[in-house]
């Protein structure tokens, strides 16, 4: 249900006109939404895309660093240069994070279009919140792994 964003009872009477940032979305031509079934399909698609976006962002906090550590170790093993291994792992990780952000941004853009097509007044994307939640999840997971599972000492060292 559409809720008015400039109701004085909602704003405490501070904004008699329209609150900043609550103006209508400016379309080039007012879009005509499709039928109910299409909108429901769009809504489902938007959910699927949101999940995909979350997975892509989460991958930047776990699988990608691990993957690049493995690649770095392989470079180190084959070239015999630790420096080269670390450099490849670091550069590769930075590059893959950038690519991840580009992909996630595009997915977020498409997600916003799908949400609007599904009938929602979607103004902002979800990327910022996904990124924040993913960082918190990754930090908790790392802390659990470090403190409870693995322990702060190296595994090869005698306990």
């Amino acid at each position, binding site marked *: 249900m559409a809720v008015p964003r400039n109701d004085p009872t909602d704003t405490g009477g501070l904004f008699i006109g329209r609150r900043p940032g609550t103006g209508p*979305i*400016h*379309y*080039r*031509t007012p*879009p*005509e939404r*499709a039928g109910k079934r299409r909108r429901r399909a769009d809504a489902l698609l938007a959910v699927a895309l949101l999940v995909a976006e979350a997975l892509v962002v989460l991958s930047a906090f776990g699988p990608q660093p691990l993957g690049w550590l493995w690649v770095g170790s392989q470079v180190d093993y084959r070239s015999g240069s630790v420096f080269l291994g670390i450099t490849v792992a670091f550069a590769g990780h930075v590059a893959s994070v950038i690519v991840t952000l580009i992909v996630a941004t595009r997915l977020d853009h*498409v997600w*916003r*279009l*799908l949400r*609007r*097509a599904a009938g929602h007044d979607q103004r902002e994307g979800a990327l910022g919140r996904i990124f924040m939640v993913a960082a918190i999840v990754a930090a908790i997971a790392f802390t659990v792994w470090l403190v409870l599972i693995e322990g702060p000492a190296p595994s090869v060292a005698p306990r």
Partner: protein
Amino acid sequence: MRRFRDYYRRFEEMPPEEVSRELRARRDEERRRALSRVDPLDLSGTAWHEPPHPDAVNAATFALRRALNVYPDASAAPLRAALAERHGIAPERVALGHGAGELLRAACALLLRGGGDALVGWPGWQPLPELVEAAGGRALPVAPAPVEILARASARTRVVLLTSPSDPTGAALSRRALRDVCAGVREDITVVVDEALGEFGAAGEDAAGLVAELPNLLVVRSFSKAHAMAGLRAGAAIGPAELVARLAPSGGIGAPAQAAALWAASERGGEIAARRRAAAAAAHERLAAALAGSPLSALPATVPFAWISSDAEDGPAIAARLASAQVFVAPGRLWGDERHVRAALRGPAAIDRLAAALLG
């Protein structure tokens, strides 16, 4: 696939820069249109062109918010006492009504109940002849001068109706002339003076100040003009106690009107009215300066409107020329005069536009 993609692209918002560019273009277009548009300027009325003093509005608002569920004080004793003190008479000689027009209507209905003639000083307040006819009397226009009035008074005459300062000319009757009229007519003839524009007249020359002295004088005043309260409909009749008592509406006037009028009757209210009189006088000077050297002229006055004529053309021609410039005035033919038009003087910008339209 392309149709599929195009469908979703329709939901893309415009970039903020593009939105700003479009809004700027729209604003420029609106400004361009506003500059080329000439708004009509209505100068056909006589009400004061600015809102009342904020204190008057506050007084009315306070009365409105306080107890709208109860009847107002029908006697309006404080207001009547204030007006009586100002004019040096007893409060019993003051009655309040819903505007000067309503009190004049009541006076005509009462004084001309059995028919008879009413000598109407002409040109005067335009609805006066209608009020006389509606009351069953016969309106006889007469020049507002003692000699003319006394010469026309007959056995059928019941009332003499005068407007001072006159609407539309702004000419005021002197106290001396009024004394001559009241003393010269039969005792049973009532001289009624519509002094709705009284605050715009010369100080010490108001008719209301003669009520205590002249037993056949009834003066009707208004809060609509110099006090800018036309919307409140408040006026006062000042005259013989037994006569004014019969003019007051049953139930009195509304509480907001009483409250605002009580403020207007105060010293501060008088100062504001005097300031408006000075503004009206300055407006006349401004118009006279603008019309100097042209065939057009306005009768010197201190009322908030001008009675304009031209040596080169008649009233309808002046009115038509003004109308073509989107300036609308009251044509003189409303008073049976084909030489003049009456134009309200509504501040410097409006006067300049009026002068430009008159000369253009």
